[in-house]
């Protein structure tokens, strides 16, 4: 239902999730919108836009075309651009107006594919949902299309699922995560969807284990487990000990082929509230519990809650009022959240620990992002735990 937001900005939307997933691939992406949706993505959801010219476009939809349901004009524009740009694939994305008028993005995609012969993907993105839905849909769609059961499995081969700039920004995080596994003897076949290409996606079915580093990777993990029997580990590598724990678990899964979600033990509600992306917040909690003995940590999921990842007392955040209520509940003495949430504390006696998230604070903090693996994150964890480093 509707939500009033007084302090916080709207979070990144589903079409930005799709665009950011497809950024590294050699395709052409078109948001069917008037202008603002594309401007939202390129200006506020894509840290890599400045300095990289990618064929991600806006269709310049106009009212008369929407009223007349003139999809042909849109299709003609896409085909014309395709003839010139020669992409390896095309993706057409919906936005609020196509949603209202009932545009069939999959039908449009089929028609474009029929006329161009270029694989074309339709995304019924709406602008009403958060980025993680778009990320999940894009990863599954591309894995379904380009992946295929491989007769050959690559022992020690892993995929990383759910790696996007909206969760990890464009600092060294993506490379650090890949290096962590490669440095421990694994081969990263495909890191969905940063630093990968269509060939990597094709080869991704050879992996022995999938490592899901954000909640948006769970849908693909479930799909790949069901279709291709690839088990997964669900955890974001964080800090030093937390990263080692993920590596150990991946080794274990290579042995017994059983999927695992990393949960801390003896956790309970209270003391620390982490508001953010569910998988990253979970992993932060696990590290606090395992390395620093802090067991009272509650995760508030800003972008929807996956029950498979949650503790009983975790919270699916409904709206900004819900956050205000949690802050004033008197239950929590520490808050870990995007820096923009600090203003909501007012004069409450709650210690605040900033953890920027691109899908929340956009360019305000995306170049001051935490590095997830290594000493800096370890220092951050110690700071939350109140241990001087």
């Amino acid at each position: 239902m509707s939500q009033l937001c007084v302090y916080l900005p709207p979070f990144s939307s589903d079409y930005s999730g799709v665009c950011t997933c497809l950024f590294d691939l050699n395709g052409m992406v078109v948001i069917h919108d008037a202008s603002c949706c594309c401007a939202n993505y390129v200006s506020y959801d894509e840290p890599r836009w400045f300095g990289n010219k990618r064929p991600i476009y806006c269709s310049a939809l106009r009212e008369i075309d929407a009223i007349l349901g003139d999809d042909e004009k849109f299709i003609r524009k896409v085909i014309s651009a395709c003839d010139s740009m020669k992409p390896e694939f095309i993706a057409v994305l919906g936005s609020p107006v196509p949603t209202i008028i009932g545009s069939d993005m999959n039908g449009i995609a089929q028609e474009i594919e029929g006329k161009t012969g270029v694989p074309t993907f339709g995304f019924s993105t709406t602008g009403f949902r958060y980025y993680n839905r778009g990320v999940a849909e894009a990863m599954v769609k591309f894995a379904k299309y380009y992946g295929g059961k491989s007769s050959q499995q690559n022992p020690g081969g892993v995929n990383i699922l759910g790696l996007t700039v909206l969760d990890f920004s464009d600092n060294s995080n993506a490379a650090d995560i890949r290096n962590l596994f490669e440095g421990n003897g694994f081969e990263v076949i495909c890191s969905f969807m940063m630093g990968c290409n269509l060939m990597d996606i094709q080869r991704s079915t050879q992996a022995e284990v999938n490592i899901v580093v954000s909640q948006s990777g769970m849908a693909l993990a479930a799909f790949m487990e069901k279709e291709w029997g690839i088990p997964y580990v669900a955890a974001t590598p964080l800090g030093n000990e937390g990263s080692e724990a993920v590596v150990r678990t991946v080794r274990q899964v290579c042995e017994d082929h059983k999927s695992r979600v990393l949960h801390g033990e003896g956790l309970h509600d209270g003391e620390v509230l982490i508001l953010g992306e569910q998988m990253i917040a979970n992993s932060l909690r696990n590290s606090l519990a395992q390395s620093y003995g802090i067991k009272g940590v509650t995760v508030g999921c800003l972008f929807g809650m996956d029950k498979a990842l949650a503790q009983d007392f975790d919270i699916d955040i409904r709206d900004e009022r819900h956050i205000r209520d949690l802050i004033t509940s008197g239950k929590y003495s520490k808050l870990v959240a995007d820096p923009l949430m600090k203003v909501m504390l007012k004069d409450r006696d709650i210690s605040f620990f900033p953890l920027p998230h691109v899908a929340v604070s956009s360019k305000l903090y995306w170049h001051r992002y935490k590095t997830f693996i290594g000493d800096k994150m370890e220092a951050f964890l110690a700071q939350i735990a109140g241990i001087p480093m």
Partner: protein
Amino acid sequence: MYNDSVFENTLQYHNPSPARVQLEVRTGLPETHRLHVSPSACGRRFAISDLRHGVKENRSHLFISEEDIFSSCYEDLIPDAVEEMLNIMEKQPRAIIVYVTCIDNFLGTDHNALVSLLAQRFPDIKFTVCAINPIARDKGAPPNVNLQNVYYGLLDRTENTEDAVNLVGNHLPLVKGCEIFEILHGLGMKAKEICSCNTFDEFLSMANSRLNVVVGHVAQMAAEQMEQKLGIPFLSAPRSYKIDEIIQLYNDMASALGRGKPDLKGYIARSREKIEKTCKYLNNMPIVVDSSGRPFSLAKALLNYGFNVKMVFGGVVLISDMPDYEWIKNNRPDITIADARRFDVINANNQLGECLCIGFSGAYTLGAKHMVDMDGGNAYGFYAIEVLMDKMNEARDSTVDFNALLNESEVW
């Protein structure tokens, strides 16, 4: 307002925006709150931009869901949201502007009924609705024009008259060095600008002014509406780099105020001197003019001054600038006219070699060595010519650092 048929209707590319944080920027009216009612995606850039400028407290968002729309109760949510918002705010606003976005065009919302309902429930606050709907730019006013219409639509006719002139259509206050302030002072007039108002009452007093000067084309329609509603005449004089147009503006302004022609000789001489020196210093260096301002008008002005303009990097063409566009197209086939938004602009190559680009977009696209930064500082009249010439000289002596621009644009 715009002629959209000049360039082929294709998929559009968005160049990155290098917008620096300008602390002096004031994007709304004082003591006014803005409530965006839209799908969550639509309000993101406004909110982040407000946060960068430290004015987020002036804007809230009411996100609506698909269910809200399909159950036809979307506008019913607004009064309760306003109440919740007012309960949180430390100070009650004098006015609330309800922003709606593209989807509203398809929902048949009765804005008048909504405003009446809100006015009944919150009688101490003025309400109005503003459509930020780029989807409708083919049939009506684009969002930045709507915004001006809505702002100035809050003014009521008054019996008071002040010896003041409103400068309308600028997002930033004109810089103090602009001669228009001196000239208005000489004519016995005070200048008023929406973005310099510190209180809502100060803004309302713009209704007392004797003349509106449209310094930015986005307020042309608002000025026409103010003439009808408030009886304030207007002069259209969007920023120009043509000396004869600037002279005409000041003469018309004096005449409209019932005064004699101002003495402009000093300003004209200074502008001409700067133009001449700059033209000589640039020594025929190729120049690219992008869409930061009125590109065709600026390009023609520079051509007349003897500069070597080789490319105009447009996007939309103001109807008022069509004669300049036509002139360049018909008389200077050697000048490339390119669409900055066209999909294949990402493949554009710099065929000009070492060139000077006026505006970021052209410079970024071509990877130009020299760039005149049109961002920041809002100059007008002869002073704008002087500032531009100074910047062209500086650009000639420097090499643009795009990484530094990126960093500057993201630090707050």
